[in-house]
């Protein structure tokens, strides 16, 4: 019996490893790219375009401005007194300073929702006096939705003017002479209105 090779059968002999396969591939890609670039300059083709109907799209707005606030002071004894000159006040444990702060909020945007927050800066919170103070933001009950400490969620329906109340309470449990004769800068308290992302 003579044996002939069956063409359908794979060659059982080990193929030599192919060398330098990248070279030809790069050459082929380069050639193809060159052909395509050449073609782009060569071919003319029909084209038509239609603009959208003449109309405008306008972006919204997010803004927050503060009006002139007024301060009151209430100690652990006695009633509430108006403060004309805050720099003349010397607060002591148990005191409550209250700021009545007019706000103007602009929330313009079909989908825009924003969070209004009162922020305490690092300088204030790290100071000996600041560490004894508790700062709380309150808004009118029919304005926005409280979503956390010192944070309210607002919508475009809340655009306009309102009055926020910021209370600064000197911890009444402060002992000894902790934080006496200290000064803080109220500019370290800020309001922020931030587009809600969740």
């Amino acid at each position, binding site marked *: 019996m003579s044996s002939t090779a069956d063409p359908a059968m794979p060659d059982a002999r080990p193929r030599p490893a192919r060398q330098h396969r990248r070279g030809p591939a790069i050459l082929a890609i380069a050639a193809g790219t060159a052909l395509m670039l050449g073609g782009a300059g060569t071919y003319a083709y029909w084209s038509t375009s239609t603009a959208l109907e003449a109309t405008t799209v306008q972006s919204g707005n997010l803004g927050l*401005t503060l009006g002139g606030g007024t301060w009151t002071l209430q100690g652990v004894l006695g009633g509430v007194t108006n403060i004309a000159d805050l720099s003349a*006040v010397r607060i002591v444990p148990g005191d409550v300073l209250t700021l009545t702060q007019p706000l103007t909020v602009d929330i313009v945007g079909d989908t825009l929702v924003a969070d209004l927050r009162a922020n305490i800066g690092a300088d204030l919170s790290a100071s000996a*006096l600041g560490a004894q103070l508790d700062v709380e933001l309150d808004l009118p009950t029919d304005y926005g939705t409280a979503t956390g400490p010192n944070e309210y969620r607002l919508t475009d329906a809340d655009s306009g003017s309102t009055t926020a109340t910021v209370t600064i309470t000197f911890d009444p449990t402060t002992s000894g002479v902790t934080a006496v004769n200290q000064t803080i800068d109220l500019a370290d308290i800020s309001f922020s209105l931030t587009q809600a992302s969740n």
Partner: protein
Amino acid sequence: MSTRDGSVGRRMQWAAGTAAVLALGTGTAAAHAVWESTAALPTQGVSSGSLALSTQWVGGATALPPLYPEQSSDTATLRVTETAASGTTLRWRLRVEVSVTGAGSEYVRTEVFVGACGGPAPLAAGSAYEPAGGLLPGQSVDLCVRTTLSAEAPSAQQGTSLTPSVSVVAEQVGI
């Protein structure tokens, strides 16, 4: 044997994975960029007050005369002044503690009067002087301390020395 092809495949997978992570990360970062408007309160300082005391014997401290059984001796006027005078709403009370040390101190009784000795009832032990509404910052209070040797003091107490001390404490009221 496809070691080389497998290696290339794995590299492609890593590259694809890395690209996906980068794309997601960039997309997430972009999603968190939001509009924000901030406004700080005007620069304005707020200061805390203080509470501090000073004491002074009016006319100078005087040595107490010798004590005999059933006899009393009064100190000079001790003026206690709140010196910080710095607290807009601050009101305070004065707590006075008198102690006597030395052999036989148990036979000695002390009383603290606001004002002159022998005036209105002395402060009860452990209590504080707190007029209605509290004392004002910067206010002074005059005290007098009366020391009495008990009639039961034994003769062994003769010629012995005792050391009285007076401490005053200002406390914020209303807390």
